[in-house]
Structures are given as structure tokens and as C-alpha cells.
């Protein structure tokens, strides 16, 4: 049986941990001891699209866990540096999979160890009710591709494991097209939602009148597409079409950056929009709209600090 460690048990990490516990030996590496103890004693409950409680081990110190074959780094981009540094020096034979929003997570991990790695983007979503209860909301897939020292076959094997656990996953030979599509989508939808307070709803696709939000959304996505093109990346899905489709489904999704802003937490602006802006500067493509969004979000973070 495969051994999986989920490092960072927020929404995404909890969804992975609980599902995978049905087909693998799963442990969770948490930041708080209280969280680890709750998971050890109460297990991890999933509600929503599935309904079960999984048993798993948990600890705050990697030394207290059996060396895993696969580490899923599922913390937020803002915590990646800290979490990666905690597993530094441990588990040299493990494969590390990053699922952070944005691009560049793999480089961050690479600074802390020379594990073999896979890159993933996930489109599933949920709501965390407490340390041991997560609600599974959107059952969209996780896409996985090879990164350092891994092959398409490795990505396929992990995708198959995840699928067997009841979640959706797909392996790709090259993840960059999907990663960039999601980056552009996220950099736009997250920042617009966080600044306006609107969930991702039909306003984001409205183009009827001047001043409608869709014009800005489209403008931000066009800038992102120009960066991808200049970086030599052929996009997977078109971010604007992803936006139109998502808003037509009728559901109003609360992007994580909006939740962060409402809870007065630091946002992932540096790893999402920041990553796009840095990539734009490297390839010499102007992105004034994204720069504007980045400045406004950072200033907003300052308003409660």
C-alpha cells in the first residue's frame, strides 16, 4: 500500500488526505499540535459530495511520521516556504507534489531539497468547517505533470491513485499549458473578487455597458495571454471561456483571495499575480492592469495591519 503524507491540511489538503486514506496509508503534517491531535483522535470527516470519516495519522514533526512515498504539499502559496523548510532533510526517497496556485512552487521546493517532484494544479474546491471536517463542493479535477526527476508515467501513477480514492485527476505530459491557464484565470478572478467583494458570478462576464466588470476581466486575461504567448506557452483552456462557463453555471464561487480579505488574512497575491507580473517583466510584456490589481491588493492588506 502506498504511503502518502499531506503537508498542510487546509481545504485541499484535507480533501486529499481523507479520500486517499481509503486507498493508502495517509499521514498529515500539520502546523499546530492541536490540529494533529484532533485528526488522530477524531479522524477527518468529509461532507458534501461525499460523506465519510477517514482515519489517518498526524504529527507536527516529520520525524514522528513513517517516511512516505508521496508528499502532497497542499498548503497555501504564502506558507510554502515555511512548510518546505520543515521537511528539508527528511524523506529523500519521496516524490513531492506541489498543488499551489500560481507558478513557481516547484522552484521554492527545490531550494529546500532535491526530492523528485511532480507539479499539479487543482480545480476542486471545498469549505473547511473545522480541523476535522471539510465539505467537498466542486468535484473538478486535479491535473498532474512531471517536474524534476519524474516522467509522465509517474504523473499517471499518482493520478491513478487519486482517481481510485474517489477524486478526479488527470496526468499531462506537460503541465505548463494548464498551469498558465489557471494562473491567468486565478490572477484575474481572485483579485477582482477580493477588491469588489463579489463572488465569482455573472458580473465577471458582463460586457453590455461601459464600466461593466467583464471588460476589466477580459483586459486582465488578455494581458495574461500575451505573457504566456511571449513565454512560449501554448495555453490549455482559454481563461475567458473558463470564466464565462463558470459564471453561467449559476453558482457563485467565493475565491480564496476574497475569503482571505474578508478574514483580514494575508493573501496569495505574491504567488499568483506577483508570479504573473514577474514573468511578464522577464519576457518584456507590459501588464499595467495586473500591476494595478497587485498594488491595490497589497494596499488593502496594509489597511488592516
Amino acid at each position: 500500500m502506498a504511503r502518502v503524507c499531506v503537508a498542510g491540511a487546509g481545504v485541499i489538503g484535507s480533501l486529499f488526505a481523507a479520500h486517499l486514506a481509503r486507498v493508502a496509508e495517509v499521514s498529515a503534517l500539520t502546523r499546530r499540535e492541536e490540529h494533529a491531535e484532533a485528526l488522530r483522535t477524531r479522524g477527518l470527516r468529509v461532507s458534501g459530495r461525499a460523506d465519510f470519516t477517514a482515519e489517518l495519522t498526524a504529527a507536527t514533526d516529520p520525524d514522528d511520521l513513517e517516511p512516505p512515498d508521496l508528499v502532497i504539499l497542499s498548503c497555501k502559496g504564502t506558507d510554502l516556504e515555511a512548510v518546505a523548510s520543515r521537511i528539508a532533510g527528511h524523506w529523500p526517497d519521496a516524490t513531492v507534489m506541489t498543488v499551489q496556485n500560481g507558478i513557481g512552487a516547484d522552484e521554492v521546493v527545490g531550494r529546500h531539497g532535491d526530492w523528485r517532484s511532480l507539479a499539479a494544479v487543482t480545480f476542486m474546491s471545498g469549505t473547511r468547517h473545522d480541523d476535522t471536517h471539510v465539505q467537498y463542493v466542486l468535484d473538478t479535477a486535479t491535473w498532474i505533470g512531471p517536474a524534476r526527476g519524474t516522467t509522465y508515467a509517474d504523473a499517471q501513477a499518482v493520478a491513478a491513485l487519486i482517481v481510485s480514492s474517489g477524486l478526479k485527476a488527470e496526468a499531462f505530459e506537460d503541465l505548463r499549458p494548464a498551469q498558465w491557464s489557471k494562473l491567468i484565470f486565478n490572477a484575474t478572478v481572485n483579485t477582482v473578487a477580493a477588491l469588489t467583494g463579489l463572488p465569482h458570478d455573472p458580473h465577471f462576464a458582463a460586457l453590455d455597458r461601459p464600466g461593466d466588470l467583464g471588460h476589466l476581466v477580459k483586459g486582465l486575461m488578455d494581458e495574461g495571454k500575451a505573457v504566456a504567448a511571449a513565454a512560449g506557452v501554448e495555453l490549455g483552456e482559454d481563461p475567458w471561456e473558463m470564466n464565462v462557463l463558470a459564471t453561467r453555471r449559476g453558482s457563485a464561487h467565493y475565491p480564496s483571495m476574497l475569503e482571505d480579505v474578508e478574514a483580514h488574512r494575508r493573501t496569495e497575491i505574491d504567488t499568483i499575480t506577483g508570479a504573473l507580473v514577474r514573468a511578464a517583466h522577464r519576457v518584456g510584456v507590459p501588464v499595467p492592469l495586473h500591476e494595478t490589481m497587485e498594488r491595490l491588493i497589497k494596499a488593502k492588506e496594509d489597511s488592516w495591519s
Partner: protein
Amino acid sequence: MVVAVIGCGAVGSLFAANLATLDDVEVWAYDLAREHVDAINRDGLRLTGAGEVTGRVRATSDAAELPPCDFGIVATKAMHTDAALAATAHAFAEGCVATVQNGIGNEEVLARYVQRVIRGTTFPAGKITAPGVVQWDVKGDTTLGPFEDRPAPFEQVERLADACTRGGMPTKAVEDARGPQWRKVIFNAATNPLGALTGLTHGRVCERPDLRRLASRLVDEGKEVAAAQGIVLDSDPEELIDYAARPEVAYDHKASMLQDVEARRQTEVDYLNGGIAGFGKKLGVPTPTHETIWALVKGVEASW
């Protein structure tokens, strides 16, 4: 002379209370907030802060009570101009009406209801702290000039400016008042929404280099739209931004748009960034940053 202030919010109150200190001016205030109106009629209209003034003002929420006036000073939020003028225009059949509102496009609305219109721009600011009481946060000048399409006679503009000045609101009458107006519109459009979107006061917006540069980008786009109309700004909005950021001026001032957002009231963004973007579009001047800010603030309004 008889003056009616239409919309007795913070700015309207500054004019009403100060003018009411003059023996030769009878001041009326038209406002829909009943508690405010009742307090003014009972206790007078009181200003605190930058100046301590209590003015005897006749306030009403019933436009029919307004007598024939020599002057109107319109100080409603820009989106309420239409309704306010529809109700009160009868009082100005023989008079002149000035706007001291934020944004662009207000004169055009006034001209649909009255014959003699005065283009105006005012810088003082404050906030209502209780019914009948206004805190005067920032002192500043006012500029008045005839509105080109439907002008008030210049000597009437001078007469109103003289009364305001004597009352304690320094006011200049000029032939072309577009320069000061666009300077203020550009100033407001470059700073108010940044406060509204981030929650920061004017001073804190300005001390962040990245936001200050964003304000400059908005200023530059606004200047190009003004220049395309042949408008000569009376001074650089950039200087005004830095001046207002000083601790003793308006460092701690929450822009009116931030006050609106916090109270979940509709903002004036359509008349500021939306106004500049609209003129830009007509004139073929690109204003991508104003369009961005406009869409974001409209999004904020839509989220309530």
C-alpha cells in the same frame, strides 16, 4: 439676497452655515434627511473643527416651501442632481444656480431645469457627525464661472462669489472655470477610489510608493483627456495630492467614496472615473486605468 442650498450634506452645510452668518443673506436649505432638517430648524446649523460656526438656516424637505431665490447652490451627491432639480427648479425661475458637486456632467443636468447655470468647484470637505452638526475637516477655495452652454451673467457669478467670500468661504469668479474643475475631478478620480478600494486614508494612500504611482497614472490619463478639450488646468493635480497628504491637511481624511463604501451607499464613481473615461472615449483618448478603477468600484457597489 436669498440663497438656497440644495442638498445640505457636509459640503452644502459648509456653504449654508457660513453664508448664514451674513446679515444681507437669507439662507434656505433643501434636504431630504428629516432629522437633519429638524435639527437645523431647532438649533441652527453648527460647524465644528476647522471653523466654529452656527448659522441660522431655514431648512425644509418640502421643495414647495422654498421662496423665489437669487441663487441656488447645488451640493447633492452627483447621482441625485436630477431628482433634486426636478423638485426645486421653480425657486430659481429668476435666479442663477451654481453646482459645487464632485465630478463632471452636473452642469449639463442643471441646464435641463434652469436658465442660468454656474460651473463651480469647491475644495473644503467635512462630514455630518450628528443631525444639524457638521465637522469641517478641510478648508479650501471655491471657483465659480458661467457654464458655457447656459451661462449665468458674469456679474451674478461675482455677486455670489463675493457673498461666499465674505461669509468665510474664499471664492473666486472666473470666466473659464473648467481648469479648476478638471483639476479637482482628476484629483478626486486619482485618489478617492484608491481609498475606497483599499480602505486607506488619503495620507496612507500617498505614502505607499506603488499606490502613489498608480495615482499618477490616473492623473496622467485625466490630463490627456482635459488637454484634448483645450482645458488648461489651473495647477497640477499632483501638487494637490501631495499637499492633501500632509498631516495638517488631510492625511487622516477618509475620502468621501471610502465613507460611501463603508456605509454601503452608491458612490460618485460614474461622475469621476466614469466621467473621465466617458470623455476619453468621445475624444479618442485611451483611459485604461480609469476604466479599471471604474469597473472595480461598480463591482463593489454590485456586491451589496
